[in-house]
């Protein structure tokens, strides 16, 4: 059995972070119960035999026309802490449109919906752990957390990794966004780990005359060294 490292509290945000108001009544008050991983935690669902259709990785090509906004590519590698590429892994993303509105019934922000944008994408990572989406840059949007609160532009990411233990849901941000400094969700992540949530502008993956490229690598926890020292 492969045993994965336990969750690193220096990396992840605490459950309770009062500046993010919704944590106040939802964060558990008791510390979590320590539990060495059993086979239930060291294994997990495998999606490699159910690859999403190729068009699901292109969020600009899911409707009759092109969505409004700045076309971008978001690409990167899924790997573990020890640098192992994680191949055949399901990556799911969702985001607001260029005006900062989600195609979701709960989102009542007074910004237009885009009939050509659902804001949902899926793909499997390649043999080297790489993934790539074509999308548009999401807009910032207001939320009710505090007076004049605005979420920085972000793309939600969901990845599984090789085990139940490695499951991760996170958000990718854009470099240079002035709203990052004011955002309690971003700030709930301790320094210096929060910088890892900001994608890098990448001229190498920028497609001339077509789309800016951003790079966002996602790193999941690695394996515990086995008795005898070999990981």
């Amino acid at each position: 059995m492969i045993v994965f490292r336990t969750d690193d509290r220096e990396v992840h945000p605490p459950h309770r972070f009062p500046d993010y108001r919704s944590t106040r009544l939802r964060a558990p008050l008791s510390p979590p119960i320590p539990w060495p991983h059993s086979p239930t935690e060291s294994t997990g669902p495998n999606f490699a035999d159910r690859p999403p259709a190729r068009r699901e990785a292109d969020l600009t090509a899911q409707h009759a026309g092109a969505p409004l906004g700045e076309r971008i590519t978001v690409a990167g590698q899924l790997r573990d802490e020890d640098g192992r590429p994680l191949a055949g892994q399901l990556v799911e993303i969702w985001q607001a449109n260029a005006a900062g509105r989600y195609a979701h019934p709960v989102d009542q922000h007074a910004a237009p919906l885009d009939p050509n944008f659902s804001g949902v994408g899926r793909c499997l990572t390649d043999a080297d752990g790489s993934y790539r989406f074509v999308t548009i840059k999401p807009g910032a949007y207001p939320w009710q957390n505090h007076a004049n609160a605005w979420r920085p532009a972000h793309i939600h990411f969901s990845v599984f990794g090789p085990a139940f233990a490695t499951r991760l849901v996170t958000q990718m941000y854009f470099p240079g966004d002035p709203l990052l400094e004011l955002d309690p969700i971003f700030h709930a992540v301790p320094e210096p780990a929060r910088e890892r949530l900001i994608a890098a502008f990448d001229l190498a993956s920028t497609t001339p005359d077509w789309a800016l490229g951003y790079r966002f690598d996602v790193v999941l926890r690695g394996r515990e060294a086995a008795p005898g020292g070999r990981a």
Partner: protein
Amino acid sequence: MKSRVTPAQTIGPFFHGALCRAGDGRLAEPASPGALELRGRVLDGAGAPVGDALLELWQTDGRDSAFCRAATNDAGEYQVVARKLAGAPLADGRRQAPHINVSVFARGLLHRLVTRVYFPEEGAANARDPLLASIADARLRARLIARPSANGAELRFDFVLQGEHETPFLDV
């Protein structure tokens, strides 16, 4: 080369279009032998329903396995067609009682919460289960075991995120 782990962020309230599909909430086919209904609510520290939670359920006996997602409705309710699967033994040979591993995601949860659902009719196996046995407080242990409904046709399990009746969550 050593890389540094990517931190978690909340799933937010807008995940449904990306993560939910028709036919979610099935660890087993409804008509299959041993299929049973598992249902309950997700509640916050004020006892209010959490209407935007996503549960992910995972079980394995070491060979066979099942995974499903189930989102809560406005009343905080979820339902899953589940079945009992023997727990895979630990590396040291100790047996685990049948159980379902659950991740809870929601707006306001910056990182997922992890817990387990055990089966009420497995008294002897539950008493020997290494995780349950490691919890000294019997009231906390009991909160990890689903309750049979009055008619015996289904199991109930509420995920209480905070407060006096808080569900025990695991550090995995």
